[in-house]
Every structure is written in C-alpha cells, then in structure tokens.
C-alpha cells in the first residue's frame, strides 16, 4: 500500500489541529446592541440584580390582580380549578398532599417578580409595567399573610421580604443518598418469597378512553 494516502491524512490532521489550537472564532454573527440586550435580558436573580427601579402597593396590586390574574388564580390567589394556587399551604410540605404556593414553597421572591414580569399574564405576557409587577407581587405576598395591607414593595426593600421556605431546599444528593445502594449486582433468582398485586390502575379508572381522544 502506498504511503501517499497516509501522508495526506497526516497533513489533514495537522491542519485540523492548527485550526482547533488557534481557538479561532468564525467571525459569524454581529455584536448585540445595548438596546437589544436591554429588551431581552430581563431575568431577575435572588440577590435582586436585574430589578428595575420602581414600586407598587398591596392596594394597587389587589386591583391589578383582579383584572389580570384572578380569572385563573382566584381573587385571593387561592387558585381556580386546576390553575395554580399562589397563596396558602403553609406547613403542608410534609403532608400527603402538599400545597405549594409562593408563600409556602417558593424560596426566592425574585422568582415571583421575574415570572410575573416575563411570562404573565397568561395569554398576554410582558404587558405589565414594572410598577404593576411590584404591586401584583406585593398583593401575592399579602395574600400569603407575609406583609400588611399597607405594604409597598420596591426595588429598595425587595430583599427585606423573608420567604418562609427559603431554607427548604437542598442541592441534589442522589449521588450520596441513592446511587451507592443501587449500583450493585442485581438479584436474578429467588429474589422474593411471594408476589401479590397490591394496587390496580383500573380501580381508579382515570385513563383516557382511546376512542375519545382520537
């Protein structure tokens, strides 16, 4: 076999290595303008970075919430039908049916502000002014008995609001709590003495009928 092909291969490998090593960019795309970044970079973080200057009261929030949110979340943020409840549920997280709301579950107030601002109202997203978002978030806090009815939320006092479940989260610990016990040679024979059916899905009868969904 000729050496010629392998010489070509070497040349190509060398060329590829040169390109990769140079860390060259491709010169594609264009620089984002400050106005463009300002229009899209809206996220707000737990330390309050990203919050615009502004404020809103519980009283204003009650009116805004009624107009923009209550159809799904209820006048008192208690939720309508299958739509999310935003208030209540304190002390239920260890119950059989935990009620997870902004008050009982959400660890950061920034999350509520960020979500209302970027993703709500449902079907009319990004239509609220910052002061309106402050007011609605203030009302959600009030609905959870976390602030008084004369409270005004602003970028100034944002970090002073204490979220009840702020310490309720741990970082994924499956690598310690689960993986060691499940990384083992599995049983193949005589793994159980007896097997009984303990529950049947058909008893609940909550599976959609296929004819109905076709």
């Amino acid at each position: 076999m000729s050496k010629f092909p392998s010489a070509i291969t070497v040349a190509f490998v060398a060329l590829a290595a040169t390109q990769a090593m140079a860390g060259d960019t491709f010169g594609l795309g264009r620089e984002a303008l400050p106005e463009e970044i300002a229009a899209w970079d809206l996220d707000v973080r737990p330390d309050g970075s990203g919050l615009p200057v502004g404020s809103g009261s519980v009283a204003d929030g009650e009116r805004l919430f009624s107009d923009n949110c209550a159809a799904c979340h209820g006048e008192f943020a208690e939720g309508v039908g299958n739509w999310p409840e935003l208030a209540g549920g304190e002390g239920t997280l260890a119950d059989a049916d935990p009620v997870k709301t902004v008050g009982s579950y959400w660890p950061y107030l920034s999350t509520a502000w960020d979500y209302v601002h970027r993703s709500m109202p449902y079907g009319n997203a990004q239509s609220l002014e910052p002061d309106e978002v402050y007011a609605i978030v203030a009302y959600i806090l009030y609905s959870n008995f976390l602030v008084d009815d004369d409270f005004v939320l602003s970028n100034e006092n944002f970090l002073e609001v204490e979220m009840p479940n702020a310490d309720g989260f741990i970082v994924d610990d499956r690598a310690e709590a689960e993986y060691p016990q499940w990384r083992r040679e599995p049983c193949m024979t005589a793994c159980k003495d007896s097997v009984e059916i303990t529950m049947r899905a058909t008893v609940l009868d909550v599976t959609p009928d296929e004819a109905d969904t076709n």
Partner: protein
Amino acid sequence: MSDSFKPSRRAFLRGSAAAAAGLTAGTAARAQSPDPLITEPQDWAIYFGDSVDAHPYGMPIEYESDVIRRNVEWLTADTISSINFTPIHALDGTITPQGCAFERHHSGAIELRKEDYRLMINGLVDTPLVFTYDDLERFPRENHVYFCECAANTGMEWAGAQLNGAQFTHGMIHNMEYAGVPLRTLLEEAGLDAAGDLADKWVFVEGADASSNGRSIPMEKALDDVLVAFKANGEALRKEHGYPVRLVVPGWEGNMWVKWIRRIEVMDGPVESREETSKYTDTLADGTSRKWTWVMDAKSVITSPSPQSPIKHGHGPLVISGLAWSGHGAITRVDVSKDGGKTWETARLAKPGEKMALTRFYLDTTWNGEEMLLQARAMDETGYVQPTKDELREVRGENSIYHNNCIQTWHVMQNGEAENVEVS
C-alpha cells in the same frame, strides 16, 4: 373506511381470545379452507395506487391512525400549558417520529420563521453577539441521537398504579437524531475570557415563546455536550419541538431543552427561575425539597405487551419488547421478570446501548396463556440498577412528582389483556 380499523378495545380483545383458543403451541396451524386474500385477486392487485404527486409530504397510512399522541385531560388546567404523550406502546426501534413525539408547552407551540429568528449570547462574554438562523448553519455541525424525557414522566404513579397504558405512564419521552452546533462553539465565538474561572459559572437559556421558559445550566455541562439543534430525524424541527432552533441537553430533564431558544446568558450564578424553584424540584417526605435534580436516572419499560398493546395472538412464540435509557450514559443490560420480580432473565439488546439514547430490548419467549407480572430492570454503564417503586419511595416518599424511574409492572392476564399494577 378508517372507522373499520378502529375497533373498540373490548371487541379487539374478544377477537384475540378467540384466536388464542383456536391455536396450539409448537406447530403452525392448518387452514380450514383456502384464504381468499390469496386465491382471489384483490383490488390493490388489479387497480392503480396513488401517483407520486398525491402526497408531496407523506403521512402514515390511515390504518395506523390510532398511533397518535394523547393527552390526559385532568392533568392540566388547559391544553395550551400542557403535555401529551408519545404512543410508545405502538412504536418499535428507538427513533421517535417527530409527528407523534410528545409535546410539552408552557404557552403553546408558536410559529417562528427562520427569517425572524435571532439568538443572543450576552452576559459575561467578551463580545455579546446576535446570530441569525443562517449564521448557525455556518458553524461546524454534529449529529447525535439523544432521548428527551420530561422530569414528570411516570410522575402520576408515585402514590400507586394510576394510568393504564405505557403511553400514559412512560410516554413523556422521545428519541431523535439531532443536527446542530455545540453550545461550546457559540460560547467560544462570543469569548469566555470575560467570565474568568469557568468552574462556578452558569448559562441561563431562555425561549422566545410567551412563557419565556428559562433554565440555568452549569458551565461544565454547557461546554460538554449541549447542542443548539435545528434538525431532528433528518428534517427541520417541528414547531411543537421548537422550530427553528432548540436546545438539546443530553441526559438531563426535558424542561431544560429550551425550545425556540432566543438567548443564552453567561452568569456567575443560577437565576433560580420559576421552572427551577417552584417546579422541577423534588419534595421529600420530610417536606424539604431537592433542587438541581437535572440528570434522568436509568429507567426502562416494557412497551409490549402492555395495557394498550395486549397479546393478540395465540399461545406460542411471544416477543416481549421495551425501551431503556439512562442520563448517565449507555444502557448495558436489561433484565425482564415474568413473575413480578421473583426471577429475572436477561433480555437481548437490539443494538449496543448508546450514551443518553433510547435502547430497544427484546425477550423472545414462549407464552402459553399463563398470567404474568411483567417487569423490566435497566442497568447503565455506571453500574446503576433501576430501583423498585418501594425502594424509591423509601428514600423520597410519595410527593416528589418528578424523576420517578421505578420498575413498572404490567399484569398480563390469561386472555392476553394487560393492566398497570403494583406488586408487593
């Protein structure tokens, strides 16, 4: 015409029971009389079929019209912020056709033209950039097959057997071959010197739809195998999967695979957005909750026989088949039990497992009408063995909602019908 191919499940099972009674195992059955399908010329053997112009883009033949995504109406408040399920009970192989691959939207499937598409990279980068769709196609591309599983797949089964079908218990998953650009390439194009030490940096990724779904991803993963993808299974993404561009985050929960991705921000910490605090966190029995549970652990399910795919034939040869996958890497082995976990036999993998992709397994066996409690148990390359539901509940309780990768049990009855059960 198509109605005659949608028999009710009950009628269908009557038919299969009759077939079972008429056959004996071991030998081919003898026909009572010549089959007219063979002895008499049929219409399709006499007249023309469709011309090549009839279907410029083909759909499945009408006889397969029941192989569709299905919704569980009571799960969500409406169908806009909702999810449907892949008909895994009726598919084979590993690649999920886009047209029946599950959808999960938070504000509906939007229509965004390539011409109107923009992708911004900003934050701690040397130069914030805006790319058009055409720009993305000029970067070096890669092809990879990956599964995408919603973190809530099997989530309705924590407290007990609830939904009667593999489509509903395990159908929040699809597996496609993607073409796209490594996220690493785009981040390097913007320059990461400004980010300094990358070890504690994150990227926040955000969609262009009204939900503006946003998730924080550690830089280590972002630079590893995350893909900015625009083709799936050879063609453009479907709008319901993020046309024209989505993020692919191999092995990690589907919510992070942001669709219609419009912005990637390099940050020095996570945003702690709604989708990574109030949702996609796993509440344990004591009320504390795990966050950042991104990886989907090893899991498997028998897709046939299963409640929507009962045994339709008589006694004798039976193919038991299913899917296995792991967010930690390749599937190395799948065991199947017919007796609810007392004894196990190792199934045949259709192909060697591939990293973070679905693996098809088969157990070629014999069935003589006996009841079975069918289970599958996956192992991945880390040596992890898929746990039982009781083992999972022992650690997590019943309120985790997400990341339920328990062993599933189907009770196959003497008539071939199957139901979703839990066993001791």
